């Protein structure tokens, strides 16, 4: 990583704090008594076997599933500023009948075009040459790249990534690492659940939360 691109202004000092957080679905507790602090410019990796509650924790942090106990808060943000996070789940939320660019333009219009222009974002994730193609023709990995481009067109400090590298090739892995790294550079926060090793150039920025019960 020789060149470090910083897009736009960097974020203020923020802290994601979870205290005594318990999450689960359908009355089944998957993880509880979670305490962690993620500061600006840091990335939290969630590790653990399948069913350990990584995805549910991300949904809980995103405010989609309500916590069973405790809570989490993103400190240092303006209450009225609207949603401060990007959630990127298993499903890519693409409409097969819209073109790649149209898909991205929609999210830019909806979330606010505060980041890169959509064509630039497509170039960044390596889809620039097929911007006019219907999203239905994308391979799984390309769909994933398009979903990641959504994070770039609107600037939000907190990224919640669920298996961001799923279906991606080696270059894709590198891309995810670069995107996360660039986001941290501007003072963003990342919480990612992953099975693949993600190694940032600067290891001090990473922290790990091991989930799943101890044997």
């Amino acid at each position, binding site marked *: 990583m020789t060149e470090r691109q910083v897009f736009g202004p960097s974020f203020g000092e923020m802290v994601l704090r979870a205290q005594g957080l318990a999450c689960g679905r359908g*009355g089944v507790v998957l993880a*509880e008594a979670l305490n962690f602090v993620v500061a600006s410019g840091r990335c939290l990796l969630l590790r653990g076997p399948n069913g350990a509650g990584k995805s549910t924790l991300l949904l809980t942090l995103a405010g989609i599933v309500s916590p069973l106990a405790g809570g989490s808060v993103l400190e240092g943000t303006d209450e009225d500023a609207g949603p401060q996070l990007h959630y990127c789940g298993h499903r890519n939320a693409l409409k097969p009948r819209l073109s790649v660019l149209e898909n991205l333009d929609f999210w830019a219009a909806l979330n606010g075009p505060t980041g890169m222009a959509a064509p630039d974002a497509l170039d960044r994730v390596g889809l620039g040459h097929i911007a006019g193609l219907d999203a239905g023709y994308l391979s799984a990995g390309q769909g994933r790249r398009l979903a990641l481009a959504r994070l770039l067109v609107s600037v939000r400090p907190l990224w919640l990534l669920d298996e961001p590298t799923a279906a991606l090739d080696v270059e894709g892995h590198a891309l995810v690492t670069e995107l996360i790294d660039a986001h941290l550079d501007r003072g963003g926060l990342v919480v990612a659940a992953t099975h693949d090793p993600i190694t940032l150039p600067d290891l001090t920025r990473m922290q790990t939360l091991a989930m799943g*019960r*101890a044997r």
Partner: protein
Amino acid sequence: MTIETAPKQSWWNRIAHPGQFVAMTQRLLWPLTIITALLFVVGLWFAFFNSPEDYQMGDTVRIMYVHVPSAWLSQFVYAVMAVSALGTLVWRHPMADVSMKAAAPLGATFTVLALFTGSLWGRPTWGTFWEWDGRMTSTLVLLFIYLGIIALWRAFDDQLRAARVIAVFTLVGAVNIPIIKFSVDWWSTLHQPASVFRADGPTMPGSILTPLFVMFFAFTFLFLTLHLKAMHTEVRRRKLMALERQAVQAGVSA
């Protein structure tokens, strides 16, 4: 940071409350049953042996002692469900979920009873089993709302999640029922300019009013008893499901 296999605190919090509810209300069940039985004995005795025949309708007027209380309950139960729905949405009270779920089949049953006795009563008095009269029609629509809610409960896998969604629908229905009633009344008067059947005709003599009053209470207490019992059953069913799920979970991770 790892998860210990400590007792599932928040899960127990959720279930402890309903458990206490069952323990606390268990004692109420017998007195309620006895009161209901007594009221029915008195009410039916009045209805059969100590109330006058109608000079037009004869003995069939006695159907009223079942019909009117059922019709009242068909609406009262929905009110109970709507209040429970508020409890689910506003206070997130687990017993409100249970109350809502337990009430739906009871409400549907009383509505069917009201419609059935109404049509039995209608045959000798009006000469037809069914008349598209305002009251009967809106009761029929109410029945479909009840049945829809029951179908909704059955369609959800996760009952905890179902409760909140169904609460929304119950309240939407509660807002709508007066509108439906109004529209149906408007419609039936439009199509029958000469109002043929009016239950609010001449004032009823006291000899009819007394048994009606007793039967009113008998049916209401019957509902309260059945509702309480159904709530207990539902709490136990949920406890069983939770235990099964925990057993499966424990089996997987062991």
